[in-house]
């Protein structure tokens, strides 16, 4: 097994969870409803915890300790998709991003339960179960608001159209894609993308929202290779500021 290929996979999954976890945590005290406030805070706690469990695997492979990995790298060393780093914006964008992202992640972890790399397969069983609650939450609200008032439908539609090219960036292939698939570590981004598309369509079909023609969409790529938007570095600075003040701060 090529260890760099494995590490690259672990970094991108963990970085996605860490960055979106921190974006979710920005809803604490700001949610449109107290319940939503709690939901986004809980999902933040789950995601940050999950990223740490994956950084712990990386540490066992010779990388630095989880706190150092999480808080001392610069933007160009992060492998998260650009979708996860975008500012929260209005609630409807956060909800759409949550739906597009978590639908992909639960399939990814489902696929990883079959990984030939045992520590990842074991952890994936656990994370997949937890993510059920995240997709349940996303699907419930998308179905509800996507069929509610003209205004809520129009706002969600706008966010959906805006977010979709970024969402396609989740599936940007790794330089090691062929090796990862061949070694049985992960069945690959293409397989993930195909299942994701079907699941997204299945939910959107139950609403008054509509999807653009897939073949006309242009994915926003680069995140997986460290080429990020201008939004990532300020977020990292903020995260590491808390870390520098109190390196033992609990997340």
């Amino acid at each position, binding site marked *: 097994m090529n260890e760099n290929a494995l590490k690259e996979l672990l970094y991108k999954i963990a970085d996605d969870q860490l960055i979106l976890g921190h974006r979710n945590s920005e809803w604490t005290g700001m949610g449109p409803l107290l319940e939503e406030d709690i939901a986004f805070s809980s999902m933040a706690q789950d995601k940050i915890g999950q990223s*740490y469990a994956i950084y712990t695997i990386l540490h066992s492979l010779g990388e630095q300790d989880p706190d150092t990995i999480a808080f001392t790298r610069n933007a160009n060393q992060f492998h998260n998709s650009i979708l996860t780093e975008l500012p929260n914006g209005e609630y409807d964008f956060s909800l759409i991003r949550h739906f597009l992202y978590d639908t992909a992640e639960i399939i990814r972890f489902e696929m990883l339960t079959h990984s030939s790399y045992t520590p990842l397969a074991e952890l994936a069983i*656990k*994370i997949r179960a937890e993510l059920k609650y995240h997709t349940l939450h996303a699907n419930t609200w998308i179905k509800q608001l996507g069929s509610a008032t003209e205004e809520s439908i129009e706002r969600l539609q706008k966010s959906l159209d805006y977010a979709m090219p970024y969402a396609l960036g989740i599936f940007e292939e790794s330089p090691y894609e062929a090796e990862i698939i061949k070694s049985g570590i992960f069945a690959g981004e293409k397989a993930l993308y195909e299942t994701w598309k079907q699941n997204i369509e299945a939910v959107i079909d139950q609403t008054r929202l509509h999807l653009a023609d897939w073949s006309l969409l242009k994915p926003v790529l680069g995140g997986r290779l460290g080429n990020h938007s201008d939004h990532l570095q300020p977020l990292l600075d903020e995260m590491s500021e808390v870390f520098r003040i109190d390196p033992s701060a609990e997340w």
Partner: protein
Amino acid sequence: MANPYSIDQIYSWLEEVKDPEIPVLSLVDLGVITRVEVTGEEVKIEMTPTFVGCPAMDLMKQEVLDVLNNNGVKKAEVIISFKEPWNSDKISEKGRQALKQFGLAPPPSGKNLFTDLDVLEHAQCPRCNGNHTELRSPFGPTLCRSIHYCLDCREAFEQFKPL
């Protein structure tokens, strides 16, 4: 040489360590102690978190070490492992009773929980035992609780989430 501590003895010591969020529930009944191994003077314990992001994990790990040390174990080690991932069916019958007395609905048991989250819609009210309830939010005040409402008692309650 015989081991100075028996596995049963260690489990009975661990009964003293409670879930910090639910002080009536021991870690043993919660089902997070997945392995106890005694080799000579050395005790090795494997634990697994209920939820990966559980913030109480470090505290629980420390309390397990303290209990072992207080009982005279000189060499103790606690490892966090996902080899046997926790799920809510790992809570013992005694643990389920303790949850209920604490006012928390125990998680519904069954093998199909991963695929069927509809069970959340009709949680059993810990006050009246009725199922005339509705889900308010799958996310509660801690990672392992959801929020429900009993239409008969006309009061909200929390459930230990099925996982």
